Protein backbone atom coordinates (compact mmCIF):
# COMPACT_ATOMS: atom_id res chain seq x y z
CA UNK A 1 0.00 0.00 0.00
CA UNK A 2 1.48 3.37 -0.95
CA UNK A 3 2.51 5.80 1.76
CA UNK A 4 0.63 9.05 2.23
CA UNK A 5 1.84 11.54 -0.33
CA UNK A 6 2.41 14.08 2.45
CA UNK A 7 5.16 11.81 3.75
CA UNK A 8 6.58 11.04 0.34
CA UNK A 9 6.52 14.47 -1.27
CA UNK A 10 9.63 15.79 0.52
CA UNK A 11 11.50 12.66 -0.60
CA UNK A 12 10.44 13.29 -4.17
CA UNK A 13 11.54 16.91 -3.90
CA UNK A 14 15.00 15.96 -2.67
CA UNK A 15 15.63 14.75 -6.21
CA UNK A 16 13.42 17.04 -8.29
CA UNK A 17 15.04 20.04 -6.58
CA UNK A 18 18.40 19.03 -8.07
CA UNK A 19 17.13 18.51 -11.58
CA UNK A 20 15.60 15.05 -11.67
CA UNK A 21 12.50 14.62 -13.80
CA UNK A 22 9.81 12.53 -12.14
CA UNK A 23 8.53 9.69 -14.29
CA UNK A 24 5.05 8.90 -13.06
CA UNK A 25 3.72 6.58 -15.76
CA UNK A 26 5.08 3.84 -18.03
CA UNK A 27 4.75 6.25 -20.93
CA UNK A 28 6.92 8.78 -19.08
CA UNK A 29 9.55 6.08 -18.63
CA UNK A 30 9.51 4.98 -22.25
CA UNK A 31 9.73 8.56 -23.49
CA UNK A 32 12.70 9.23 -21.22
CA UNK A 33 14.46 6.05 -22.30
CA UNK A 34 13.72 6.66 -25.98
CA UNK A 35 16.28 9.48 -25.96
CA UNK A 36 19.34 7.27 -26.19
CA UNK A 37 22.14 9.65 -27.08
CA UNK A 38 24.42 10.73 -24.27
CA UNK A 39 24.19 9.66 -20.66
CA UNK A 40 21.27 9.37 -18.29
CA UNK A 41 20.91 8.50 -14.63
CA UNK A 42 17.69 6.88 -13.45
CA UNK A 43 17.22 6.70 -9.68
CA UNK A 44 14.65 4.37 -8.16
CA UNK A 45 13.65 6.39 -5.10
CA UNK A 46 12.27 4.75 -1.98
CA UNK A 47 10.75 5.60 1.39
CA UNK A 48 12.97 3.20 3.30
CA UNK A 49 15.16 5.16 5.68
CA UNK A 50 17.62 2.30 6.03
CA UNK A 51 18.95 2.98 2.55
CA UNK A 52 17.12 5.77 0.76
CA UNK A 53 17.89 8.19 3.57
CA UNK A 54 21.51 8.09 2.39
CA UNK A 55 20.83 7.48 -1.30
CA UNK A 56 19.26 10.86 -2.02
CA UNK A 57 21.94 12.97 -0.29
CA UNK A 58 24.55 10.70 -1.86
CA UNK A 59 23.21 11.42 -5.33
CA UNK A 60 23.14 15.15 -4.59
CA UNK A 61 26.76 15.14 -3.41
CA UNK A 62 27.87 13.10 -6.41
CA UNK A 63 26.24 15.47 -8.88
CA UNK A 64 27.87 18.44 -7.16
CA UNK A 65 31.25 16.82 -7.82
CA UNK A 66 30.37 15.79 -11.36
CA UNK A 67 30.70 15.05 -14.15
CA UNK A 68 26.95 15.03 -14.54
CA UNK A 69 24.88 12.87 -16.87
CA UNK A 70 22.98 14.61 -19.67
CA UNK A 71 19.60 13.57 -18.30
CA UNK A 72 18.34 12.81 -14.80
CA UNK A 73 15.11 11.02 -13.95
CA UNK A 74 13.51 9.21 -11.05
CA UNK A 75 10.71 6.77 -10.32
CA UNK A 76 9.37 6.13 -6.84
CA UNK A 77 9.14 2.51 -5.65
CA UNK A 78 5.96 1.59 -3.83
CA UNK A 79 4.27 4.78 -5.01
CA UNK A 80 4.33 4.95 -8.79
CA UNK A 81 4.13 1.20 -9.20
CA UNK A 82 3.54 0.94 -12.94
CA UNK A 83 6.27 3.42 -13.77
CA UNK A 84 8.73 1.54 -11.57
CA UNK A 85 7.87 -1.77 -13.22
CA UNK A 86 8.40 -0.22 -16.63
CA UNK A 87 11.73 1.27 -15.56
CA UNK A 88 12.94 -2.05 -14.19
CA UNK A 89 12.38 -3.52 -17.62
CA UNK A 90 15.39 -1.48 -18.77
CA UNK A 91 17.67 -3.21 -16.25
CA UNK A 92 15.93 -6.55 -16.00
CA UNK A 93 19.13 -8.53 -15.46
CA UNK A 94 19.20 -7.04 -11.97
CA UNK A 95 16.75 -8.21 -9.31
CA UNK A 96 14.35 -5.47 -8.18
CA UNK A 97 15.68 -3.38 -5.33
CA UNK A 98 15.04 0.09 -4.08
CA UNK A 99 16.61 2.49 -3.76
CA UNK A 100 18.83 1.76 -6.71
CA UNK A 101 20.50 3.68 -9.52
CA UNK A 102 20.99 2.89 -13.19
CA UNK A 103 23.42 4.78 -15.41
CA UNK A 104 22.97 4.53 -19.17
CA UNK A 105 25.23 5.66 -21.98
CA UNK A 106 23.80 5.83 -25.49
CA UNK A 107 20.89 3.72 -24.32
CA UNK A 108 23.04 0.98 -22.83
CA UNK A 109 23.15 0.19 -19.13
CA UNK A 110 26.76 0.82 -18.07
CA UNK A 111 26.53 0.92 -14.28
CA UNK A 112 24.03 -0.23 -11.69
CA UNK A 113 23.98 0.42 -7.95
CA UNK A 114 21.69 -2.04 -6.16
CA UNK A 115 20.20 -1.33 -2.76
CA UNK A 116 22.72 -3.44 -0.88
CA UNK A 117 25.52 -1.17 -2.11
CA UNK A 118 23.73 1.82 -0.55
CA UNK A 119 22.29 0.60 2.75
CA UNK A 120 24.44 1.07 5.80
CA UNK A 121 26.72 3.54 4.02
CA UNK A 122 27.04 7.26 4.56
CA UNK A 123 25.95 9.77 1.94
CA UNK A 124 29.62 10.54 1.26
CA UNK A 125 30.39 6.87 0.66
CA UNK A 126 27.40 6.54 -1.67
CA UNK A 127 28.52 9.68 -3.48
CA UNK A 128 32.11 8.52 -3.83
CA UNK A 129 31.03 5.27 -5.46
CA UNK A 130 28.70 7.08 -7.83
CA UNK A 131 31.30 9.70 -8.74
CA UNK A 132 33.66 6.93 -9.87
CA UNK A 133 30.99 5.67 -12.24
CA UNK A 134 30.21 9.19 -13.46
CA UNK A 135 33.89 9.85 -14.10
CA UNK A 136 34.19 6.62 -16.05
CA UNK A 137 31.08 6.99 -18.15
CA UNK A 138 30.07 10.67 -18.22
CA UNK A 139 33.34 12.55 -18.47
CA UNK A 140 33.84 14.29 -21.82
CA UNK A 141 36.39 12.68 -24.09
CA UNK A 142 39.80 14.38 -23.96
Amino acid at each position, binding site marked *: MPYDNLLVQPMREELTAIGFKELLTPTDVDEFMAEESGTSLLVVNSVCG*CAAGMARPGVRLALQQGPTPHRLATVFAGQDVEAVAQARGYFSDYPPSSPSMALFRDGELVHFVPR*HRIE*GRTAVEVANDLVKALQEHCAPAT
Partner: protein
Amino acid sequence: MGTFHQDKGELHGITVVVDMEGDRVYVGRCWEMNDREVVLLDADEHADGEDGRSKEEFIRRAAEVGVWKKHDRVVLPAADVASVTRLGDVEV
Protein backbone atom coordinates in the same frame (compact mmCIF):
# COMPACT_ATOMS: atom_id res chain seq x y z
CA MET B 1 14.52 11.69 5.73
CA GLY B 2 12.85 8.30 5.83
CA THR B 3 11.35 5.59 7.97
CA PHE B 4 13.30 3.93 10.74
CA HIS B 5 12.61 0.99 13.05
CA GLN B 6 15.55 1.13 15.40
CA ASP B 7 14.00 -1.34 17.84
CA LYS B 8 14.64 -4.16 15.36
CA GLY B 9 18.40 -4.13 15.79
CA GLU B 10 21.29 -2.61 13.90
CA LEU B 11 20.84 -4.84 10.86
CA HIS B 12 17.17 -4.00 10.38
CA GLY B 13 16.63 -3.11 6.73
CA ILE B 14 20.09 -4.27 5.71
CA THR B 15 20.56 -7.01 3.12
CA VAL B 16 22.52 -9.79 4.80
CA VAL B 17 24.05 -13.16 4.06
CA VAL B 18 23.00 -15.73 6.64
CA ASP B 19 25.28 -18.76 6.45
CA MET B 20 23.68 -21.71 8.19
CA GLU B 21 25.35 -24.63 9.92
CA GLY B 22 25.33 -27.21 7.12
CA ASP B 23 24.96 -26.58 3.41
CA ARG B 24 22.41 -23.76 3.21
CA VAL B 25 22.81 -20.03 2.87
CA TYR B 26 20.17 -17.29 2.77
CA VAL B 27 20.37 -13.74 1.43
CA GLY B 28 17.63 -11.29 2.27
CA ARG B 29 16.70 -8.06 3.95
CA CYS B 30 17.01 -8.41 7.70
CA TRP B 31 13.79 -7.60 9.49
CA GLU B 32 14.90 -8.63 12.94
CA MET B 33 17.71 -10.52 14.59
CA ASN B 34 17.63 -11.61 18.21
CA ASP B 35 18.75 -14.46 20.46
CA ARG B 36 16.06 -16.76 19.10
CA GLU B 37 15.85 -16.12 15.38
CA VAL B 38 16.85 -14.18 12.31
CA VAL B 39 13.91 -12.96 10.25
CA LEU B 40 14.57 -12.12 6.59
CA LEU B 41 12.27 -10.54 4.02
CA ASP B 42 12.45 -10.98 0.24
CA ALA B 43 15.02 -13.74 0.68
CA ASP B 44 16.78 -16.13 -1.66
CA GLU B 45 18.07 -19.51 -0.54
CA HIS B 46 20.84 -21.68 -1.88
CA ALA B 47 22.24 -25.10 -1.00
CA ASP B 48 25.91 -25.78 -1.58
CA GLY B 49 26.26 -27.38 -5.03
CA GLU B 50 22.71 -26.55 -6.15
CA ASP B 51 22.63 -25.63 -9.86
CA GLY B 52 26.34 -26.40 -9.95
CA ARG B 53 27.21 -23.46 -7.72
CA SER B 54 28.96 -23.50 -4.40
CA LYS B 55 27.81 -21.35 -1.51
CA GLU B 56 30.68 -18.98 -2.21
CA GLU B 57 29.77 -18.61 -5.89
CA PHE B 58 26.16 -17.91 -4.98
CA ILE B 59 27.19 -15.26 -2.44
CA ARG B 60 29.60 -13.61 -4.89
CA ARG B 61 26.89 -13.39 -7.55
CA ALA B 62 24.43 -12.00 -5.00
CA ALA B 63 26.98 -9.34 -4.05
CA GLU B 64 27.31 -8.33 -7.71
CA VAL B 65 23.66 -7.99 -8.65
CA GLY B 66 21.42 -8.77 -5.65
CA VAL B 67 19.00 -11.68 -5.31
CA TRP B 68 15.72 -12.81 -6.81
CA LYS B 69 13.47 -13.56 -3.89
CA LYS B 70 12.21 -17.08 -3.28
CA HIS B 71 10.59 -16.26 0.05
CA ASP B 72 8.60 -13.23 1.14
CA ARG B 73 9.60 -14.01 4.73
CA VAL B 74 11.83 -16.64 6.26
CA VAL B 75 12.50 -17.31 9.95
CA LEU B 76 15.83 -18.93 10.74
CA PRO B 77 16.54 -20.37 14.19
CA ALA B 78 19.48 -18.52 15.72
CA ALA B 79 20.91 -21.80 16.98
CA ASP B 80 21.39 -22.97 13.37
CA VAL B 81 23.04 -19.77 12.14
CA ALA B 82 26.81 -19.91 11.60
CA SER B 83 27.30 -16.26 10.60
CA VAL B 84 25.51 -13.11 9.49
CA THR B 85 27.30 -10.73 7.12
CA ARG B 86 26.22 -7.59 5.29
CA LEU B 87 25.94 -8.37 1.58
CA GLY B 88 27.36 -4.93 0.85
CA ASP B 89 30.56 -5.93 2.65
CA VAL B 90 31.17 -8.93 0.37
CA GLU B 91 33.99 -8.25 -2.10
CA VAL B 92 32.94 -8.47 -5.73
